[in-house]
């Protein structure tokens, strides 16, 4: 029967599409590629949900297919058939209700495990959202100062890290798919979440709440490293900026401090101390520019400083007018700030 064949073809095509989709489990930030406790628990719950839902879907479609193609009989109109159908509907409803109760319980159990880490947190990081970049502030390094690491979050391997989220302007959402679900950054509120990475590496984070023009280019990197390496990193970050080493770099510093650059950025150890834009004290040591948009290389830095709007249309970073020689000097100086 042509109709029956079409139906089977349909089912086969859908199954193939589903298989193809689940096979493509790749990419740098996949929900089912967890690198930490919370993400692992959620992935396990997700697999359970998908398994249950797939079974239900196939059952429903199979019963529908049977209902469509089965041979009709004289008894279909009888009261007895009606009663049997009502019983079948009731049974299916009870089964769905029990499934729902089970899934709600599984979800609540997983959710309870996500509320707080098992042990005390190794460090606390303030995550401050800005249009369109991230500020990660390490406040418990010492009582009177904090280290600001824009768009690059370093965390020690295997230790719980408390995250305090806040926003300077609009609502953003902090999300590292490999480590944990989202947490919104809401102006006027401070909320807590946590992550714990158990696989060293660099994981990409994204803004997940629409926050205006450059929502698409508001990413960051999470660097998971051994506690020793992390300690070395944070000690280095606490230091003031490197001094310029040669004439070119000195000229770059002077141009920077004498230009509008210094009205928005901080370079600790100099007179630049504004917190409008990202802290540049160690900008040369970072992996990316413009919130995960460009790799931090000399030519990309030149492009970014020369015409920020071409890289990130709408960015609040202006193109500061200066001669090519001056810009070259500023680039040399910023590269020095390791």
């Amino acid at each position: 029967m042509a109709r029956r064949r079409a139906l089977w073809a349909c089912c086969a095509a859908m199954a193939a599409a589903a298989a193809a989709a689940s096979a493509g489990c790749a990419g740098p930030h996949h929900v089912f590629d967890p690198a930490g406790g919370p993400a692992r628990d959620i992935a396990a719950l997700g697999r359970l949900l998908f398994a249950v839902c797939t079974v239900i879907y196939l059952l429903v479609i199979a019963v529908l297919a049977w209902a469509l193609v089965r041979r009709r009989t004289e008894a279909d109109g009888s009261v007895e058939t009606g009663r049997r159908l009502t019983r079948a509907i009731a049974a299916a409803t009870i089964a769905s209700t029990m499934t729902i109760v089970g899934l709600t319980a599984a979800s609540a159990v997983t959710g309870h495990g996500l509320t707080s880490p098992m042990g005390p947190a190794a460090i606390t990081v303030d995550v401050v959202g800005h249009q369109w970049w991230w500020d990660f502030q390490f406040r418990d390094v010492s009582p009177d100062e904090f280290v600001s690491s824009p768009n690059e979050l370093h965390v020690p391997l295997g230790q719980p890290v408390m995250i305090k989220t806040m926003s300077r302007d609009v609502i953003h959402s902090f999300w590292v798919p490999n480590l944990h679900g989202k947490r919104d950054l809401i102006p006027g509120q401070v909320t807590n979440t946590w992550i714990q990475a158990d696989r060293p590496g660099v994981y990409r984070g994204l803004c997940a709440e629409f926050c205006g023009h450059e929502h698409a280019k508001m990413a960051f990197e999470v660097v998971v490293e051994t506690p020793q390496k992390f300690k070395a990193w944070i000690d280095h970050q606490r230091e003031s900026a490197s001094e310029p080493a040669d004439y070119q770099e000195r000229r770059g510093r002077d141009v920077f401090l004498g230009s509008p650059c210094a009205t928005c950025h901080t370079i600790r150890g100099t007179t630049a101390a504004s917190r409008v834009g990202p802290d540049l004290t160690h900008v040369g040591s970072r992996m990316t520019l413009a919130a995960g948009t460009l790799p931090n290389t000399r030519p990309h830095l030149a492009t970014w400083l020369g015409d920020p709007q071409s890289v990130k249309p709408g960015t609040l970073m202006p193109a500061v007018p200066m001669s090519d020689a001056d810009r070259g000097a500023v680039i040399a100086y910023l590269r020095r700030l390791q």
Partner: protein
Amino acid sequence: MMPPLTFDPRRSGIHGRARGNGPAADGTAAERAALEKTWRVPEGILGWFSVVDHRTIGRRYLVTALGFFLIAGILAVLMRLQLAVPDNQLIGPDRYNQIFTVHGTIMMFLFAVPVMEAMGIYLVPLMVGARNIAFPRLNTFSYFVYLFGGLMLLIVLLLNSAPDVGWFSYPPLAGPDYTPGKRADFWAQLITFTEVAALAVAVEIVATVFKMRAPGMTLDRIPLFVWAMLVTAFMIIFAMPAVVTASSFLLMDRLVGTHFYNPAEGGDALLYQHLFWFFGHPEVYIIFVPALGMVSSIVTTFTGRPIVGYTAMVLSLVATGFLGFGLWVHHMFATGLPQLGLTYFTAASMTIAIPSGIQIFCWIASIWRGTPRFTPPMLFVLGFIAIFVLGGLTGVTLASVPFNLQVHDTYYVVAHFHYVLLGGAVFPLVGGIHYWFPKITGRLMDEGLARLSFWLLFIGFNITFFPMHQLGLMGMPRRVYTYPAASGWGPLNLLSTLGAGLLAIGGLLFVWNLARSVRSGAVAGDDPWGGDTLEWGTSSPPPVYNFLHPPVVEGPNALWDRSADAPVVTGLRTDCREVLITDVVDATPNNRYEFPEPSIWPFLAAVATSAMFVGSIFTAWAVPIGIVPIAIAVTGWFWPKRKEAAA
């Protein structure tokens, strides 16, 4: 003077299965002529603006909403083109943000809700055997308010000043500090336009269903589509005030410097989200519940048997209406609300799958029991089940707080809500349009084209939206105008764009079929499908008075259960627009009521209201000044006629 009201078994103005088709007998020509004259639809330009006929307004609503659907569809294609490849330069962020905002806003506020209302406005009075919808002048007013609101949005889109903060416009982003200019004001005021129009229609539908049902149409004999529209109307009445509050506070923050949502001055950014989603989640069901009613109508007709589990279906619709109000927080799981509260919303969100499931089971049981005819409307219903069940199940996964935290605001959610809205509401709607097109126009849509467009839409839909689940799991957030190649999202996005091409071709084919069938479709006759509800008992298209005599209903499937000598109501006056008012519960006649004549005042009131709404975007003075012309127009609207004054 008034003739007595009787149930007259001999003079049937309705023909059901039992009686066969053909005009009713014995000298009703004079009566028909009198009704024709009394209920005449006014002509000419002035007439066009004063019409109060539910079928005319329903058709206009339908055509306008489908026009907006096409526009929003074009915007969707533009978005898919921009996302087809990584780092695409086709559309910049400013334009892209306007496009996705207007796409969502049109689809939700100017297409989905109005198109369902359009079907209700056209069909509910016919299905309950009434001559017109209750409050017909309000109906005209609502149409023009809706039209003007929609035109305002289109004009600002063409002027490159369209809203660009997303269809739910969260402050502070939509507030005065981060969206200067008028873009967000146009959005907030568009909401006001559609709220007013939707509330008007909701009130009309409730009144029509409660007080204008044909005698004998007791609560347990109301067609499921009418039940669905009734539940929808109540949801509109309870949900819309929340969004009125949300958008008015937003406008006031922007226009007169209040600080409802400004945390720096003691306001609260999350307040908006609670208010908005208290409306926003029921909104989804406001779109989806009427579609369920259409599915029930189509399944009943094309299986040729009464639906299995009518009572369960009605209770499920009502349960959906209640539960729909208890899940708004599942849009806010990532905001950091307390865990225990969130668990409640997980349970509530999962629970709503049960009434939806019951309806699916009932339809499948009906199909199992009956003899399905694979007509185009039925194909769309089968496509609906295949798509909607998947969308419902991804909805269950989204209800789980921990899993939701990972996929919230990603393409997984985009996939989910297109499965439930496009698959769950638009597929039944398109099936419903194929089903009722012969009733509305008197002609059938071309079956070959209908089948072709179904397959293009079904396959195109799945190729477009299925890969988005995977993109969401791969970490692609929604509302991004571009993405880097290193993300790995390129191939699936390209596949999705190709699917969107198929979907667009299918959609255009459907529109082409509509356009050509209006003129040259095969003549349908009164009841081409053998339907069970009252609208199939009158001619196609129905006369201006709908039924010569209000029918008397004898069972849940009005035409099928009709006995050979079923009575009709006679004795209503034909020289004025007299209608029969019946009891809410058992639909016994308890009054007669004279409906208003066509009038230009509702149109003028809509113009004055629109002027005030648009004016208040620019100055708060528009409110006190704009109220004056509205008061004048409304006074004209309700001015008693000399004839009534004398009586």
